[in-house]
């Protein structure tokens, strides 16, 4: 049978935005240009121009035992070359950031191969081979998936997603990794993602307009589009909730099983 992926339930613009993120055929609008060198600097895992550190020899040179899975799955470039695994982590403000942790996790799974992603309430980490990570970071940072003011590139001390914004509309950051320049209306990173100062600031462009963010966000908010307005999404969440609750009680299955084992 031929299935068509539905990605995410819902009939509002928020649900539509979520589907756009997850749909691998949808192309994100590119908003800014960040040179590769700057991305490497902001990630802070290696110096620009430095070779990738490896954890094993290239796969072609390795003698490994017969495994059907290895023939079936084509390794990503970083795995082929034995490059080590590194991460990029984002925090997204609740004030209508373009993405949010769950949306990010699902998007990463739909769009990229060879990722390990971890979802937390305020941050979302993606781990993969460093070589591929840099390629993906470029996509994540240059497109409308990222807003310099409401999303933050944060490896450690991520606190801020649920706090009020500051006077310039920036998400709170205790380490102040990025600064807003009122004259140029641009935001630039002065520290890498864990807070080590950079030699040169990395310009990540203008913050998005708040009205525009309301259009492209994937966050339901009562002052924008409330989740209660989205009947389909509520229905799906409701049915999952019900199934989980009933399932948690064992649907009488475990009880009978237990009785059987006790010899009753």
């Amino acid at each position, binding site marked *: 049978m031929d299935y068509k992926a539905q990605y995410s339930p819902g009939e509002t613009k928020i649900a539509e935005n979520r589907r756009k993120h997850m749909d691998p055929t949808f192309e994100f609008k590119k908003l800014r240009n960040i040179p590769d060198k700057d991305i490497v600097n902001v990630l*802070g895992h290696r110096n620009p121009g430095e070779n990738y550190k490896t954890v094993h020899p290239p796969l072609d040179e390795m003698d490994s035992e017969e495994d059907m899975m290895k023939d079936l799955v084509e390794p990503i470039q970083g795995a082929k070359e034995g490059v080590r695994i590194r991460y990029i982590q984002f925090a997204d403000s609740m004030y209508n950031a373009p993405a949010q942790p769950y949306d990010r996790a699902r998007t990463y799974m739909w769009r990229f191969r060879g990722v390990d992603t971890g979802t937390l309430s305020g941050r979302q980490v993606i781990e993969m081979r460093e070589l591929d990570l840099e390629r993906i970071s470029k996509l994540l940072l240059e497109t409308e998936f990222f807003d310099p003011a409401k999303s933050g590139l944060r490896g*450690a*001390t991520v606190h801020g997603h649920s*706090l*009020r914004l*500051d*006077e310039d*509309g920036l998400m709170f950051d*205790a380490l102040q990794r990025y600064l807003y320049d009122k004259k140029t209306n641009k935001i630039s990173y002065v520290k890498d993602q864990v*807070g080590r100062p950079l030699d040169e600031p990395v310009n990540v462009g203008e913050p998005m307009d708040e009205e525009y963010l309301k259009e492209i966000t994937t966050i339901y908010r009562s002052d924008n589009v409330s989740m209660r307005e989205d009947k389909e999404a509520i229905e799906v969440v409701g049915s999952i909730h019900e199934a989980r609750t009933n399932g948690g009680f064992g649907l009488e299955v475990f009880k009978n099983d237990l009785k059987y084992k006790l010899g009753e």
Partner: protein
Amino acid sequence: MEEVKVIDVKIFPYRYLKPETTEKILNDLLELKGIVRVMINGESLPKIIGFGPAKGVNVNHSDRKVIKVKKKDIKLFISVGSIIITVELEKVNLFLKKLDNILLKRLNFKYEISAGIFTKNNTTVSDYLKYGVGFEEKIDYRMIGLVDPNARSKETVKLILGD
């Protein structure tokens, strides 16, 4: 102990305040009559990075700086999120009106002002849990619930004399 009739007034701006704005608001505010004490609250800004790969590196946050309130230096360790002012009960109505005018002039975003009890007036179990039994002796009783008794009062408390 002499009993005073006071009430707390809380300013809750919808954005975190920059030190410059805080300075202006506090200076305007302290001109008003009936203030007993002022507490500023907010999200703490570390001086050095406490954990992670960059542990020990200086943060140099531009909001962590000294502001001048009534010609006294006040070191800000926080991004100011709310200001709680204890006001004499009989002067509170006029105070609220004037405060609203100050905030209208100084802030270009929304804020909330509410009157009620926002500071502690009794020691509670959580205080004992946090600071240990017998902590009251280490601290001026007027500071209970306002400041961390283990912090140096030189840094956390500023006395500004009124008229």
